């Protein structure tokens, strides 16, 4: 088991899983190659099968099957956590997620609960190629009855770290289906402590949703007022922060970075408040552009702010596929330089 104090996002998530399984005997984990010593393709489940041998199921390569089975288990009182090894494979579970898990509660007239958490790593930058590098969460955004969460790599005041706490809450405290979007590169990020965040003023804002998940706002400390809002989640939030720092120090363009942890249902009040002040919005995502996360964010922001929103753009992945070659992959997926260039255009 990992050390008591998590250092990386991966540690934090692992700790969250351990704590959830420890605290509730109904929690059961299903996934491919999750048994120790391998402990999962990205090691997020490391240690679990040793500690809870009866509650960690290694499965055949049957994403749809295991998701459906998790739904059935949940209906009968268990709290399953499903690991889909690569986010790209979530297309295989779409029917079970959309037509089954997220509909049971409503179509059975609120008489059942479906406490399933499906967790999966999205994202590229590892050279794994077109079918192992995508960010497909956009296809599940807005599915009624489905909550989509993405952790942020901030330590916060949580012993588990905020990623682990978010996962823990998703498993232990929520009774409806959750799609927990992780990111391969984000796993390795060190959790930011107060010391790491000295350049920033960090606020954690609770959204209006029930339950509420944290929404973070990071502005540069003791700097001129922000003139543009950057909205990003997951790994892209890390890149947005780096870009914001460089933009401030190199170009004197001041940004504030807004990071939701709940992607769907959309609860954007803190973002609206920020854009109301800055009047300028750039959304940044690793998924593709059309009908992506940014599209919905822009639509909602326009609806709420109207003419107060002066400039709004989206930055997303380009190209037909995510190439395997590192330089081509870097061209396709938005990086710090891309963010900086786009912000300079907008300022």
């Amino acid at each position, binding site marked *: 088991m990992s050390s008591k104090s998590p250092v990386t996002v991966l540690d934090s998530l692992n700790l969250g899983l351990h704590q959830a399984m420890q605290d509730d005997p109904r929690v059961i984990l299903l996934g491919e190659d999750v048994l120790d010593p391998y402990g999962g393709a990205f090691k997020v489940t490391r240690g679990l099968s040793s500690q809870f041998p009866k509650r960690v199921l290694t499965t*055949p390569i049957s994403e749809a099957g295991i998701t459906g089975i998790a739904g059935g288990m949940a209906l009968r*009182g268990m709290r399953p956590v499903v690991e889909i090894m690569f986010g790209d494979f979530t297309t295989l579970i779409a029917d079970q997620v959309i037509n089954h898990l997220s509909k049971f509660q409503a179509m059975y007239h609120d008489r059942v609960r479906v406490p399933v958490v499906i967790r999966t790593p999205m994202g590229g930058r590892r050279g794994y190629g077109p079918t192992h590098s995508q960010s497909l969460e956009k296809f599940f955004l807005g599915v009624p009855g489905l909550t989509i969460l993405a952790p942020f790599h901030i330590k916060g005041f949580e012993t588990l770290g905020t990623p682990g706490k978010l996962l823990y809450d998703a498993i232990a405290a929520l009774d409806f289906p959750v799609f927990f979007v992780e990111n391969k590169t984000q796993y390795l990020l060190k959790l930011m402590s107060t010391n790491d965040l000295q350049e920033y003023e960090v606020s954690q804002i609770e959204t209006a949703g029930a339950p509420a998940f944290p929404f973070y706002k990071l502005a540069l400390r003791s700097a001129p007022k922000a003139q543009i809002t950057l909205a990003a989640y997951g790994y892209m939030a890390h890149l947005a922060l780096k870009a914001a720092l460089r933009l401030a120090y190199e170009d004197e363009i001041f940004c504030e970075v807004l990071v939701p942890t709940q992607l769907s249902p959309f609860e954007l009040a803190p973002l609206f408040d920020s854009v109301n002040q800055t009047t300028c919005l750039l959304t940044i995502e690793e998924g593709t552009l059309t009908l992506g996360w940014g599209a919905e964010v822009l639509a909602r922001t326009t609806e709420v702010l109207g003419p107060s929103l002066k400039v709004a753009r989206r930055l997303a992945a380009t190209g037909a596929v995510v190439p395997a070659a590192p330089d081509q992959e870097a061209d396709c997926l938005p990086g710090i330089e891309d963010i900086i260039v786009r912000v300079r255009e907008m300022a």
Partner: protein
Amino acid sequence: MDKNTQLYKQLYSIRHFETLLLENFPTGVFHGTTHTSLGQEANAVGILSHINEDDVVVSNHRCHGHFLAYGGDPAALFAELMGKPAGVCGGIGGSQHLHWRNFYSSGVQGGTVAMAAGMALAEKLSGKDAVVVDFMGDGTLGEGIVYECLNMIALWDAPILIVLEDNHIAQTTPSHLAIAGDMQKRFEAFGIPTTRLDTSDILEILPTASRLIEKVRFVRKPQALIIETARLGTHSKGDDTRTSEMLTRLWQTRDPIAIHGARLSEQDREAVEQEVKEYLGSAFQTALEMEGGGS
């Protein structure tokens, strides 16, 4: 009431319910679509006669027979089909998506097999001796998820009885155009013991069902039962491409109500039918008078 009469009453209740449904659909009192169990009543009654209160039943789009044989309230089902708030699922589920006590049904082929598999595993992990009965059709065998789940059901010893009602047709597609190889061997390929019945006679179904359910309950391993049966009605409404000769033949040879009814005296049969007609007629009225369900 003796056993045969009791069984006839159950069979006829389903038959008459579905008949009322089809008769009244054109009047606009029912909404949406429905998939009647005409010809397959004996499967439902035969199998569900042997389950306990804690057992779980999962069905598919053609679920009315299973629901009523399970003990579901016909008035509530009528109301659900009428789209009324007092219906089984508040009018939200409609014909295909029912849930009451331990009964669940859903309308996506194959998806329900996964749901049932998960439920069986949950029951097993909770240490109870409950059994899950899952009803699927021959057409369901086209879906990949079925095979994924058969694999896991066998791998993890899920206490489930899968009942495949093979009526040789999936919507308008006869099974010889959709299914290659052998149906039974599909289950057996995963090591799931499979029994095959070719009957519409409830008295032939009952003992097999009883044996299989007990086996699942005590051995805690899966079983499959393929019942060759006949769908005497359309797939939903108006979608039946079989010839009238074929249908006539099926009605004459594979009608469970006629087969079992022949065992009763005409007097007893008519008494039962009358009782059922009154009971269901009244249920229908009750449902009609319930609030809501605007067109």
